[in-house]
């Protein structure tokens, strides 16, 4: 509508409820997009099969943000213009940040499944909810486990993206606390390369007895392999962005064996979640991957909140989200903190056993 047309059309109460989802589908992070949209679609289909929400169907509208702020803003505006009710996307923090005011202005609540940069939290925007564990929660789990394993000298590695660097820097801060292990080195790699020999050499020179990789699975797989080739025999741990079967494939089964991961609860570790995995696999022909479960939960949470709010009005949905207590998700029962983050990340430690991730330590 043009500038002079005032007032929108009254909403049709029988039309579907639209969930917008910004994920990267092109560019360097394109591999992630399908994992997230597939899982979200799975949730939408399941809810619709049960009759939808408030008698209305759900509709998922994914858009490519290419992990690029400009493209993300355009996509967010497109979603807003097409009248989405809730946003359930957000993967790259740098691309998600500029979309906050876009959704905020249109009064669209955002349930962010993956992006978890501290910046998103610090903004304390009323309409923004993060359902991925925050970096701090993850690093707490990571450092607890390192301590438990008796690590003395930890190499922390990241890939210079905001997600990864946040966790790495936070881990460094935690390690700086007296007692517990020391940080041997904070090493950054460049994402999307193949050869990390120089980084490996750098790290090896510091003789670490524990390595924590906070980036994604593609580089993670290569790093594991290259560390093993360089003769590193100690434990390697990866953060949740690396928890994917592809990590094991890229590193090679032998080299990946025994690798730890900090991860929220996943279908792999939850009792009775096999059905979910099977459903996903039968529908999309591949295993779920990074942020599949969070995306799935984001849709379910959105449906729950809209149901509780009795409609799609943004303010009411936000209130309903704030009021949620005990909604069951992969990461455990949900209640938002005042910052709109998870109370407890629900992080556990997984490890690769026989070529697949399995629960190692629930860190109860």
């Amino acid at each position, binding site marked *: 509508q*043009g500038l002079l047309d005032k007032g929108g059309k009254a909403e049709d109460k029988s039309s579907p409820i639209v969930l917008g989802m910004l994920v990267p589908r092109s560019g360097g992070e394109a591999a992630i997009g399908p994992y997230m949209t597939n899982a979200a679609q799975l949730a939408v289909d399941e809810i619709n099969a049960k009759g939808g929400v408030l008698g209305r169907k759900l509709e998922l509208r994914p858009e490519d943000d290419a992990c690029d*702020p400009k493209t993300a*803003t355009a996509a967010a505006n497109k979603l807003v213009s097409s009248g989405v009710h809730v946003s359930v996307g957000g993967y790259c923090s740098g691309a998600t940040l*500029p979309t906050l005011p876009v959704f905020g202005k249109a009064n669209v609540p955002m349930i962010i499944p993956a992006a978890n940069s501290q910046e998103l939290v610090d*903004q304390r925007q009323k309409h923004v909810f993060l359902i991925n564990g925050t970096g701090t929660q993850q690093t707490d789990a990571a450092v607890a486990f390192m301590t438990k394993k008796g690590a003395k000298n930890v190499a922390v590695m990241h890939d210079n993206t905001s997600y990864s660097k946040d966790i790495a820097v936070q881990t460094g801060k935690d390690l700086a606390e007296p007692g517990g292990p020391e940080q041997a080195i904070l090493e950054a790699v460049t994402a999307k390369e193949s050869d990390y020999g120089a980084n490996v050499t750098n790290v090896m020179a510091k003789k670490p007895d524990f390595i924590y990789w906070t980036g994604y699975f593609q580089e993670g797989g290569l790093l594991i392999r290259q560390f093993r080739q360089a003769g590193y025999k100690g434990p390697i741990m990866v953060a949740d962005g690396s928890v994917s079967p592809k990590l094991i494939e890229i590193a090679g089964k032998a080299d990946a064996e025994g690798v730890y991961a900090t991860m929220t609860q996943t279908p792999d570790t939850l009792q009775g979640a096999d059905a979910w995995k099977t459903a996903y696999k039968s529908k999309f022909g591949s295993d779920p991957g990074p942020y599949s479960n969070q995306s799935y939960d984001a849709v379910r949470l959105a449906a729950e909140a809209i149901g509780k709010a009795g409609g799609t009005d943004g303010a009411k949905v936000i209130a309903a989200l704030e009021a949620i207590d005990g909604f069951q998700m992969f990461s455990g029962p949900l209640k938002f903190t005042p910052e709109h983050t998870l109370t407890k990340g629900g992080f556990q430690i997984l490890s690769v056993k026989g070529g697949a991730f399995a629960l190692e330590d629930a860190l109860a």
Partner: protein
Amino acid sequence: MSAPGTGGASGLDRVSGFARGLFDSRWPGPVLLLAALLGPFVNATPYALNLMTTTAISVMLAVGLNIVVGYCGLLDLGYAAFFAVGAYTSGVLATRFDWPLLATVPVVLVATVIAGIVIGGPTLRLRSDYLAIVTLGFGEIIRITANNLDVTGGPSGIHGIPGLFGGEDKVVFYYATVVIVALAVIGAARLGRSRIGRAWRFVREDEDAAAAMGVSPYRVKLAAYIAGAVWGGLAGVLFGAHLSAVSPGSFRFLDSALILMAVVLGGMGSNPGVVLGAIVLAVLPEALRDLVDWQYFVFGVLLILVMLVRPQGLWPARSRETPQDAARAVRPEVRA
């Protein structure tokens, strides 16, 4: 390389004759401006406004880069560096020190001029191929530095940048942008048609011959570089204000390449062409967005096709002698 000789006047010639008439006329500029001003009356959804605003900013970038590449013939593969300097300078001042955005503009001007001198100063004597790699390197250096430093907010960048006048409506911002960009386009065009603009083209065509006429290639190139930097920096201010956030992800090599492509696609050295090129390159990917996975494949194929059809660019630069200028014949006045 291929033979320039062609057959007699063909149908194509007649069509291009018409096109030439269109291209040489004076009205496309005002018409385009009018369209830009009327746009929101047709469609003022956030999406349309956003697209129009980013397009306008791309136009400003392309016109700025055209000064460097089109007028002066300096291949710049890292133009996003200046864009970044502008966006970060104003963004940091506005968010960390709570300056009003307009107040940051003078600082941005100084910063971009300095950036232009720092980058161009030591390198403009290099041959163009090497200049290309140097600019590419500087583009990467600026981006990585922004990514690594804390003042710039690291990889997630800075956010919460107010609008131009402090949180104005998106429509107001759009109109402000259109006005600024229009002035920038006119400014660039006027520079192109002046003494300095001619000097840029002389240097582009033949540095030695230009030097023999007293044109200092180095200074002239530096001037082009600085002008380009200022245009890019100001566009950066608009960009930051528009997105409310600035992060290193906006200043990748690919972004520099896209601005360069706007210049080439439109027609190097031709202001209307470059404006057109920027519009096409900003709108096309969005127009193809609904093709989802086919989007960039089709985009790539279209780029090739467009160039095959118009190898000189959409709206190539022409000798711009006006009929009056071309005809004026004065008797030689012999000086004593």
